[in-house]
């Protein structure tokens, strides 16, 4: 019998996680300097299959959001790490985070992984009203089906009042192979009676 502590430590990557168990609830002190912040960020962005929970991002300290915003907005960086930086911004919040997410979510030329993460992150960070104003144009006008589908999903989940009508309209226009990408959004809207 293996303890869930061990499972948590070892298997986040390989199996469904147990419902409990983090080794420590202590939050570390903020990074002492830029070098320590950089190494913490590298450890968070470079993980292969480990989870990054809110406490993970908060452990980057008060300068974490600014550093993540720089990485997320740097088009020369690897998309997987930039997308993770976006995920961190969506947890940490603040003006820099919000500005970065808005910019990346609206950028038609952005890498798919970064943009879809920004769309999801906007759903976590922005109030429903401003979320709809950001995402409905993406839903209607993005050239990549995956961007439209993720926008639909976030709207249905976070701003259904303003978004579900647009989601239904857009789903009806999607080509057959891409329409299943709207299934969850449509189901959510239907469940909410929207």
């Amino acid at each position, binding site marked *: 019998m293996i*303890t869930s502590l061990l499972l948590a430590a*070892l298997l986040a990557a390989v*199996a469904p996680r147990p419902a409990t168990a983090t080794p420590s609830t202590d939050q570390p002190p903020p990074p002492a300097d830029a070098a320590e912040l950089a190494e913490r960020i*590298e*450890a968070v962005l470079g993980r292969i299959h480990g989870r*990054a929970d809110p406490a993970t991002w908060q452990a980057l300290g008060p300068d974490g959001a600014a550093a993540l915003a720089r990485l997320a907005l740097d088009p020369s960086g*690897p998309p997987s790490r930039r997308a993770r930086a976006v995920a961190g911004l969506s947890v940490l919040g603040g003006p820099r985070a919000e500005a970065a997410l808005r910019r990346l979510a609206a950028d038609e030329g952005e890498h798919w992984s970064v943009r879809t993460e920004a769309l999801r992150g906007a759903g976590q960070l922005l109030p429903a009203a401003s979320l709809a104003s950001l995402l409905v144009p993406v839903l209607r006008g993005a050239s990549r*089906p995956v961007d439209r589908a993720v926008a639909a999903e*976030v709207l249905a989940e976070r701003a259904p009042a303003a978004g579900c009508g647009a989601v239904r309209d857009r789903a009806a226009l999607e080509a057959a192979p891409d329409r299943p990408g709207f299934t969850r959004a449509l189901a959510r809207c239907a469940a909410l009676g929207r």
Partner: protein
Amino acid sequence: MRLRLLATLLLPIGAACGRGGGGGTPIQTPPYVEAKEPRLACPAPAQVVGLNSAPDPGTTCQLAPQPSALDAAHGLIDLRDHKVGDVVDFQVPPGTAGLTIIQQLVSGGPPDHRVTTEYLPAKVPPDLATSDNVAVIGELRDPAGLLVYTDLTVIDPTADHTGDLLVTMGTGAVAGTVTYPSSTGGLGAVSSGGLAAGVWKVTVNDYAYECALALSATPPAGLAGAITCPQGWSDTIYRVYVLLTPAASSGTSVIRPAGSLDLAIHLVDAPTPLFDVTAAGALTDARMQRMVQSYAAFLAGAGLCLGTVTYYDAPDWARIRFAEQVSSSDPTPCGNLPQLLATSKPGDRTLELFLLPKVLQDPASTTGTVVGVDGTIPGPATVNGTVASGAVVSAEDLSWGNCPVAGGDPTPRPYTCGADGVAYVAAHESGHFLGLYHPTESSGTVFDPLRDTPHCECTQCGLAQATCDKTGLPGNRCTHASATCGGGANLMFWLVSSVSQGYLSPEQARVARSSPLVSSP
């Protein structure tokens, strides 16, 4: 999980090879040198296109037992179906270097394949957890009756398990696998002559049955007072395979000095392509060719040559279902991740990799991604089509960075070349499938069961434990010529960083080559 007593009882090699350099004076202690397996020189792999015409299962969840690619003449012992608690005999012939036991669910058990266990404070901190109903053998005994493994006890995860004969820490529900040897202790035990020939005994088992035992009037000593559960199940039936790995026919070790591995790469792109590689196109796609070249280089670090790479276009239904909807924390065997792995083709002796545009951290529409995830550690080698038959790798970075051309500079650059980064993750996940754990976990307090992989111990390497617990152990702290602050460049280190090189230790390589998935070169 195992009796810690076993280490001292069974394996005399531990004390002399202690990791911490204990004993002796500083002047007499030689400088620590991290052991690295040399990369094998291999021919370029054959590359072909395969056809995956698997029908859409609809809402049916694929959990049925699958066949092995091996037959009785090549190491398969089909023990057929048995209920948990059954003790089953099997014959190990002389000249056997290792064995793998795979349990596949036939019927019974908790309806959702989950089990709740309370770990009592006598052994570990109070800890109530709902987890997979892990399919793992109960006990394994050799012909002399020696207890090679027991799961009927609770372990301390931070303890040293290098001396244990058999270690398994990463198996899952429905399809569970253990491989022997998987630790320094096991490698030492088989090094002189291989496994003991004769009748071995294995107990069919899973966590739900351990719960039933714990609730019984006479619980096993290792579980009594250590765990309790709201409910247990004693009716589960598993199909049990034993796969024997033959000893090397020559050389100084019973474990083959080199081997060959065939790979299947399933391209599970979105219906409107994102990373935009087809199976036919992969044969000439510069990114994929570089990726495969670098993957082969990492594999060569285990003494393995890549034999044939077969590319598959995922069927349309699979692209629609899985390309953007696989998460690393799917809660049940019927979730998208296990069900994607179950689309691997039964009967092939291949390591199955699924390349996706992105792998989510959670199924919900929240942020967070991972770049790779494996079914179980080890995977059900030679048994494709199960919920654990392979690994998923993200193709997010495939087109990124400055990469040498395929056929050019053979040194992988996982931190600056996206195709090499994808290859690195693919090789890392393959290492898990072949039985390798992270030498150091992110907390810097849990380590693999191999003695020649250096630790990187959080507080010994200048970090507060709370920092490692929250953000994880950074690679740059783990590059010292030290048994306690090293290993950051190892392929199986828990993250990819600027210090990643992707080598393996000799013991890691021997464990990998012990897998029944590996064939003779």
